[in-house]
């Protein structure tokens, strides 16, 4: 019953976010600030993780292909498919749920605890629109970060393959171009947009409706990470079934 209540309250919150919009000049500056904080502030960790994940995928694939009958180009093919279909959109989103999600929950939760949200409401400001809407819009830039993750992941795979002696550069690149289906990229971006909305709204919900003090802010951040990850994993399954099944 509590879960049903929470789900209902989440959807009411999402509805409220789009009501009584804040004045555009203020909203514009809030959106730009959030893009800087949520997207640009995360590029470093996204690039770092994607590079090494791409490298590890290449090494693991190469080590598991022992038969001389299997062409080395398959390593590039497997790396491309793994990175584009799963590692860039899903794995990066889980990382973002931790980094960005906990930031969103703790910043909104701290505002709640220190009565700053009450102060907004008393002034007649729609606090959900003021706080959550810029985050949702900023997260629309997230597919660009995932595109970068795809590129860096494949680049990491190529570096590991070519310089680690697992796959010659030419073979790896040949594999990258093998049987390329453009819809796979579209599928990855559709997933990314859905995950971006989840990453912006579920942590906001946990911050906005938290009760208690500083300790509860920490607990809310952890809970929000768990639930954001769970929802991303479930939606990943559903979207894959719908789009590729």
């Amino acid at each position, binding site marked *: 019953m509590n879960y049903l209540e929470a789900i209902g309250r989440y959807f009411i919150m999402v509805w409220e976010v789009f009501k009584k919009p804040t004045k555009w000049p203020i909203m514009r500056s809030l959106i730009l600030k959030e893009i800087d904080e949520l997207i640009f502030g995360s590029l470093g960790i996204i690039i770092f993780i994607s590079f090494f994940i791409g490298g590890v995928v290449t090494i693991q694939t190469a080590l598991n292909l022992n038969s001389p009958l299997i062409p080395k180009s398959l390593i590039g093919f497997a790396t491309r498919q793994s990175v584009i279909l799963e590692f860039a959109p899903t794995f990066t989103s889980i990382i973002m749920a931790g980094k960005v999600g906990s930031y969103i929950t703790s910043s909104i939760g701290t505002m709640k605890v220190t009565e*700053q949200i009450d*102060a907004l409401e008393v002034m007649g400001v729609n606090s959900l629109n003021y706080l959550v809407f810029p985050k949702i819009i900023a997260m629309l830039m997230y597919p660009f970060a995932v595109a970068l993750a795809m590129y860096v992941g494949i680049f990491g795979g190529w570096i590991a393959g070519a310089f680690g002696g697992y796959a010659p550069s030419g073979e790896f690149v040949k594999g990258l171009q093998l049987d390329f289906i453009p819809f796979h990229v579209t599928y990855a971006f559709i997933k990314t947009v859905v995950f971006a909305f989840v990453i912006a709204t579920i942590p906001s919900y946990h911050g906005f409706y938290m009760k208690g003090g500083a300790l509860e802010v920490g607990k809310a951040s952890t809970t929000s990470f768990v639930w954001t990850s769970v929802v991303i994993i479930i939606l990943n399954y559903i979207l894959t079934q719908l789009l590729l099944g």
Partner: protein
Amino acid sequence: MIQVEDIHKSFGETHVLKGITTNFEKGKTNLVIGQSGSGKTVFLKCLLGLFEPEKGKICYNGQFYSELSISERRDLRQEMGMVFQGSALFDSMTVEGNVMFPLEMFTKQTRAEMKDRVDFVLERVNLVDAHKKFPSEISGGMKKRVAIARAIVMNPKYLFCDEPNSGLDPKTAILIDNLIQEITKEYNITTVINTHDMNSVMEIGEKIIFLKNGYKEWEGTNKEIFKTDNEAVTNFVYSSELFKKVRQMYIEERN
């Protein structure tokens, strides 16, 4: 003027406000006192519209809050100023940004007009050199002044203060009390203050209501509170030895 008629508010099984009826007059500092857990903050949040009472009515200058549409309620809230217990300043904004915030949100003033207004109210609360400082860089007393400046920047008709001098030294607390009273008179605002501070009660309590376990136990002025025989009020107000002696002296002098 704010008229409160028989308001009740519960949270689950806990009945916090149990039928409070009172009036808060314009141009007066109205104080709500009572022990922790007596329902003061819930009462104030009902007045602010942050909590909806289950029963009873709150009327602002003839407008019943429960009969207003959502947009009318938001318009009414723009006529309210609130000083929170912890000041509730926006951490990411400077002092100037905090005070300018309501003007940016709800007026069509130019930047220069807003700046003039902010300078005026900051000067009014005796803060002239703190414009570019962040809340984390100023003292508790200064935060309260900024919160008061932010509350009055839109020329509100109603000013609400939740324990405005909690955590302040006695001298700063008196300055804050006097400032609130001066502003109330100057702008003819209806001011409601939640407080535990007995100095505030004695100094600025033009009207006092005493809450106990969610009921209005007593109502009067700071002159009448000296004379009252209500045991709950005297136990609360004269809980310190100093105030007991002051009261004793007052009674002896009167006799």
